[in-house]
């Protein structure tokens, strides 16, 4: 009974949190956009997007190079090293781009979002906004949500492009694969709608999930220095797990049955 009871309580608590966070999400998003709030959105694009660029570009370049090296050692055994471009591109646009991009985003941008909102709460700045007659859901939460929704897909596109060029550099300049066959094997197997667009859809789904988690965790964090730490950790853990789980589901829906 003790075990079942606590299991039941946890499930109930989870469902309650899910319900509350959904209401929270809709209240934040369903607001009339105002011209005045445009610069808030711009600022968040900078904080969430531009500041994540260095890590995304750096990681992308190295992931591409590693894929090139590893793929070469396998493919060369079967004399199929000309398919290296295809392998790199498909792995990246279908899986690694959205997943690694999402994980990096969770670690870099989402943790910062949670910590920032939790700190605003701890220092009574959110209450202070309410007292000045401004709803923090509109003023603080909404621009961060929108920025997250847009920035992750943008970052993933950049990640993919950089990684593919990193792979190209390794394959062509280092391993001596013909540049033409690198691109043509890629072009003959990567489909714009099926691969590129599906990859983008994946990254949009991840973006909504992780930004939602980050902003919500910050908003409900207990207003102490300990609470900020817990909330930040929870954000990184939850969003990483959610990305991996969602990726499995989306891959099953999008790519099974494809060649």
């Amino acid at each position, binding site marked *: 009974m003790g075990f079942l009871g606590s299991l039941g309580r946890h499930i109930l608590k989870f469902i309650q949190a899910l319900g509350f966070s959904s209401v929270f999400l809709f209240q934040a998003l369903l607001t009339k956009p105002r011209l005045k709030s445009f610069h808030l959105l711009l600022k968040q694009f900078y904080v969430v997007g531009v500041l994540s*660029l260095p890590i995304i570009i750096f990681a992308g370049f190295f992931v591409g190079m590693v894929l090139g090296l590893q793929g070469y050692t396998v493919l060369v055994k079967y004399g199929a090293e000309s398919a290296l471009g295809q392998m790199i591109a498909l792995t990246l646009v279908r899986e690694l781009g959205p997943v690694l991009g999402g994980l990096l985003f969770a670690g870099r941008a989402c943790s910062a979002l949670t910590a920032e909102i939790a700190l605003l709460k701890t220092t009574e700045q959110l209450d202070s906004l309410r007292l000045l007659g401004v709803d923090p859901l509109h003023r603080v939460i909404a621009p961060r949500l929108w920025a997250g929704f847009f920035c992750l897909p*943008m970052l993933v596109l950049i990640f*993919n492009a*950089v990684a593919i060029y990193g792979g190209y550099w390794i394959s062509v300049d280092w391993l001596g694969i013909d540049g033409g066959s690198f691109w043509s*094997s890629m*072009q*003959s197997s990567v489909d*714009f709608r099926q691969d*590129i667009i599906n990859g983008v859809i994946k990254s949009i789904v991840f973006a909504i999930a992780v930004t939602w988690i980050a902003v919500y965790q910050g908003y409900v964090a207990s207003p102490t220095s300990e609470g900020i730490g817990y909330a930040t950790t929870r954000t990184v853990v939850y969003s990483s797990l959610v990305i991996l789980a969602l990726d499995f589901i989306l891959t099953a829906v999008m790519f099974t049955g494809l060649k």
Partner: protein
Amino acid sequence: MRYAALEVFVGLFVLLTLLAFTALAFQVSGLTTFYEPDKGYEISAYFEEIGGLKPRSRVTIGGVQVGRVESITLDAQSFSAHIKMNIFSEYKNLIPIDSSASIMTAGLIGDNYIVIDPGADFETLQQGGGIDETHSAIILERLLGQLIFNQNSEDE
């Protein structure tokens, strides 16, 4: 952070995204529907067996890519594959009308592609022209099967 600098950085971010998207669309997936830099011309051929040939596979002469596969359909009368190929415009008036086409495999398990062996005729293939002589893809399993079958019949 001044407001103007903020705008510049976010603008650069958006620009970078557009660049990345363009690269992925055209360079990586070889998208041609939005923008066609090279109209080229179309020729067709019938093959008994095309193996793993796919739309946008390479078409080569002497290892040089001269075009790509445009579409693959099944001909209802002959049950053979009807392949339409787009040949780049720089190879106009070049491919003799008596050329032959075969489907090859890159490496042992690589992609399939079409190789055109040029003939000797002075007349060249034009838009809508067809290649009559074709060699099907070599299917490894069948080849092995034949080999084993021949071995067996020699033994007897």
